[in-house]
C-alpha cells in the first residue's frame, strides 16, 4: 500500500496500538499504586498492565517497520 511513497495503513495501525498501549499501560500502573475501591473481577491479574504492554510493543514494532521514512 505504499508503492508510491504514501503512508501505509499498517503505520496508522501501529500509531493506534502504540497510543492505546501507552494509555492502558499507564492506567494499569496508576491502579497498581492507587488501588480502586471497586475492583473489577480478576483485578489481581492486572490485565491493564500486560495487555497495555502487549499493545505498546506491537504498536511500536509496526510504527518502526512501516515508518514512512523506511519506504
Amino acid at each position, binding site marked *: 500500500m505504499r508503492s508510491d511513497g504514501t503512508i501505509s495503513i499498517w503505520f496508522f495501525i501501529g500509531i*493506534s496500538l502504540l497510543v492505546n498501549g501507552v494509555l492502558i499501560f499507564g492506567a494499569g500502573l496508576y491502579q497498581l499504586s492507587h488501588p480502586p475501591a471497586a475492583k473489577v473481577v480478576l483485578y489481581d491479574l492486572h490485565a*491493564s498492565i500486560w495487555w497495555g504492554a502487549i499493545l505498546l510493543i506491537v504498536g511500536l514494532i509496526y510504527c518502526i517497520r512501516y515508518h514512512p521514512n523506511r519506504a
Partner: protein
Amino acid sequence: MMIRAMAMLIGDRLVRLAPVDLVIVVFYFVLVLAIGFYLKGRSNTGEDFFLAGREMTAWIAGLSFLSANLGALELMGWAAASYQYGILAAHWYWIGAIPAMLFLGLVMMPFYYISKTHSVPGYLKLRFGEASRALSAISFAFMTVLMSGINMYAMALVMKVVLGWDINFSIWISSITVAVYVTLGGLRSAIFNEVLQFILIWAGALLIPILGLIEAGGWKALQLKVAQNASVEYTHLWSTLGSFKDNPMGIHWTGIVFGLGFVISFAYWTTDFLVVQRVLAAKDLRAAKMAPIIGAAFKMFVPFIVILPGLLGLAVLPMKLTGEAAAVASGGHSYNEVLPLMLARYCGPGLLGLGITALIAGFMSGMAGNVSAFSTVWTYDIYKALIKKKATDAHYVLMGRWSTILGVLISIGTAYLVMQFLSIMDYVQALFSFFVAPLFGTVILGMLWKRATAAGGFWGLLAGTVSSIGMWAWVRHYPSALRYVALSSNARDMAENMYRGLWSWIICVVVTVAVSLVTTPKPESELVGLVYGATEIPTEAQVPVYHKPAFWAVVVAIVFIALNIIFW
C-alpha cells in the same frame, strides 16, 4: 427486537468512563478523521473514489471485507444470541459463512474481477441487461441506506444504555465522522479505516474471553457451569439439530445446512455489494481470490470474541439475563446486554475505553460500508445508467461525494423515523432479506450457465423476490402457514428466515431456467469474461503451491471441518 428492548430499558448506565477512557475514544475519532484528510488527495478519479484505485493487497481487501460485516450490532447481537441459544449461534460464523467465502474466492471472484465491473448490479447489466441491473440497484440502494439508519439508531441507543450518552449526540457525531472520511477519501478511506477498526475490535474484545475462561476454569469447567445454569445442549453445535424441538433455536439441521449454509450465506457473502465491493478493490486477480479466503480464516475465529462471551455470561454472571419483556418488567438486564456486562466485569479504566472504542469502531465500519456501497451503486447503476448517461469522470466523482453525504443524511432521517416508529425496523429488516436470496440465484446461474438469458435473469429475480415477500406476508396474516413455509409449526423466526430464503432461491432458479429455455440466449462471444466455459481464467501454474488461493482454501476448509467436529 433488540433495539426496542433497549429503548425501554434506558435508565441507569451500565458503565462509567474514566478520563483515560474518554481520551482513548477521542483519539480514535481523531485518527479516523486524520486518515480521511490524509487520503483526500488520492480520490480524484472514478477508479480511485469508487474502487480505491484497485490497488489493495489481499490482506487489506480481506480484512476490510470482513470488517464491513463485523458491526457492533453483529457483536452484541450474536453475543446475546449465544447467551440465549448457546453455541448454535456459531453456525452463523462457520457453516453460515466459511463455505460461501471460499466459494466467492475460488469460483466467483474471477468473473467479478475479469469483467471489470464496479458493482454487483454492474455485473447483472453485463450479463443480463439493464432491467436486471435496475431492479437490483434500486432495491439495494434503498435498503442499504435504510439499514444504515437503523444501525445508526441502534448504535446511539447502545451508547445511551451503556454510557448514558445523549442519542442525538451519538447519531450526529458518528454520522458526521463517517461522512467526512468517506466523502474525502472514498472507498480507499473506508477500507483503511475498516482495517484499523478490525484491529481495534480484536484489541478491545479479546480480553473478555481470555479472562472469562480463566475465571470459569477452562472450557470443560465452562461446559459444566453452562449445563448447570442452562442446559447441556447449549454447548453442542450439531447433536441437537435432529428435531425442531430438541434445541433452543427451534431449528432443524436441514434449515441450517440448506437454508443458512447454502442459500442465505452464499447470497450474502457472494452477492451483497456491501462486502463484495471491498474485494473488487484488490490489486490483481490473485489478491481478489485470496482476500475472501483471508477473510474466512479470520471469520472462523470471530466466535471467540462473540459467541464465547455469551456462553461465559451464562456461566459466570451472578444475575440471570432475560428476554426483553421480562427485563423491562423486572428492571433487570436483557440478553442484549451480555457483552457490555462482561466488558464492565473485567475491564478497568483504559481497557474499558478500548472496549467501548471497539464497539464504536464496529458501528462505524458497518456504516461506512453501507454509505460507500450506496454511493457507488447510486452513481454508476442509477444516476449514470438512468439519469445522466454521458458526463465526465470528474462529474461522477462529484456525484459520488454528494451521494455519500446524501446517504448519510437519509440514514440520519431513517434513524429518527425509527425512533418515532420502532415497528418500522422489523419491516425493513425483513424487506432487506427479500432481495438477497433470489439475487444469488440470478448471479450464480449467470456465472455458471451459458444458456441463461436476459429475460430469464430478470423474471427469475423478480419471481424470487415477489415470492419471498408473499411468504412473509402469508405467515404474518396467517401464523398457521408457518408449518408450510418452515416445515414445522415449532419453527422460530430464524428458522422461518432460513426456509423462506431457500424457497425464494429455488423459485428464482426454476423461473430463470424455465424462461431461459424458451428465450434466445446471447451469443457466446458476448459472454467472454462473464460466464464459466466462455472465459479463460488465468492459470497459476508458475506460482509455488503455498501462494495459490486453492491451497489456503483447503487449509481453511480443514480447520472449519475440525471446529465443527470438536464442538459437535
